[in-house]
């Protein structure tokens, strides 16, 4: 079963909807037994990094997730804040993350270009950095809906899956083994997002 992790941060209904549209069933849960039995995991997230880590801790989910992701190698897709949580550290609250992907989450700064607005909000294109089964049948160019003020920088460039240009290139998706993170919202990105979700479920 595909489990959408409910830790009080974000728009879970939309993710369940797109999984259904892709032809699969999912459940939204914070129950450790349900999560332990998942065949695939989705870690959504909208909001504050520090609060998100606190919530995961209070729900006693960190150890279970570490086991599922690092030992059992269950495929997991982090979306937006969910992606950022997978990194080692975030400037937002100066806290440690799950540390599954070596890298950090920092805020966009365009101090000498005040006309560039934060958050990066709207539709932008992705440039795949490597060929990967999750890109199967993608339209070129594929575009996705973004809304974020912080972004991820990977320590190991091999982990970068997509890049996106917002007055400079940043990492808009990463992948290492069974771990996937996307900065954009596939659940709100029409056929482009649907294809990505379908590929994650069926091919990854």
């Amino acid at each position, binding site marked *: 079963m595909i489990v959408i992790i409910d830790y009080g941060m*974000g*728009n*879970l*209904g*939309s993710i369940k*909807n*797109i999984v259904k*549209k892709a032809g699969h069933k999912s459940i939204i849960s914070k129950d450790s037994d349900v999560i332990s039995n998942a065949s695939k995991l989705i870690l959504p997230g*909208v*909001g*504050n990094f520090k609060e998100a880590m606190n919530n995961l801790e209070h729900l006693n989910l960190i150890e279970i997730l570490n086991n599922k992701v690092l030992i059992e190698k269950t495929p997991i897709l982090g979306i937006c804040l969910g992606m950022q949580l997978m990194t080692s550290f975030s400037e937002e609250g100066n806290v440690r993350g799950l540390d599954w992907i070596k890298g950090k989450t920092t805020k966009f700064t365009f101090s000498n270009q*005040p006309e560039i*607005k934060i*958050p*990066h*909000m*709207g*539709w*932008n*294109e992705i440039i795949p950095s490597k060929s990967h089964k999750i890109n199967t049948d993608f339209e070129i160019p594929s*575009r996705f*809906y973004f*809304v*974020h*003020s912080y972004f991820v920088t990977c320590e190991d460039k091999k982990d970068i899956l997509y890049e996106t*240009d*917002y007055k400079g290139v940043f990492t808009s998706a990463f992948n290492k083994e069974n771990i996937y993170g996307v900065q954009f*919202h596939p*659940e*709100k*990105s*029409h*056929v482009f*997002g*649907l294809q990505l979700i379908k590929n994650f479920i069926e091919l990854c």
Partner: protein
Amino acid sequence: MLRTRVIPILQISSRALVKTVKYKNPKYLGDPLNAIKIFNEKRVDELLIIDINAAKRKSKIDFAYIEELCAECFMPIGYGGGIETMEDIKRLFTLGVEKIIVNSLIYTNPALIENAIKLYGAQSIVASIDINKHWLTKKIAPYIHSATQRINMEVDGYIKLCLELGVGEIIFNDIEREGAFKGYDLDLINKYIQDLNIPTVINGGANNFRNLIAAKKAGADALAAGSFFSLQQPHLAVLITYLSKEEIMEINNLNK
């Protein structure tokens, strides 16, 4: 490169799709779900759903129906109408809305907006400002309660209030032109919108593609329209439509 958002606005009333002129005389257009399905096919950037009756209804927000609509939306959704409490905001997010659109609430309960921003982030709270002309003095001012009540503030002071509350985005509704196919008011964009350092949306008056280009050039970040995407000029037959691929390309080329 970030694309320019072009946003259809759906006005709903008692589960029907309607369209007003200057927020008055709602004309029945059809089933909102059908419109949403067409906008999905056309891959629109974003949709705003405004329940024009919710504030007046005893039961306020029609959560069950919003949930039904959201289940069909594979694009970002903003919702406005009848929002009064933090519980309302929380429920709307849970059932699939990305952005909460607040209008009269900015004036009547700014503390709630501040708290919602603390909890959900600036990007999820959008201020909607209705700008109208006084019928006699012709002076423009911000209005609330479906543009029926003028508030005792200047437009720039009201914008400043929104910025201080920390909203992530402002939609400017030009009531004088709403549903009137007169073109966006470029002076309004020049005077109030172009210099703001948060994303801005202009709404009211869109009548042709050149006018959208002009509004973008004048400094609006995103372009919203109701009638332009649902009624065909000059006879105002119902036609749910969106920009063509070529037009989208032209508008995005302005960002290069």
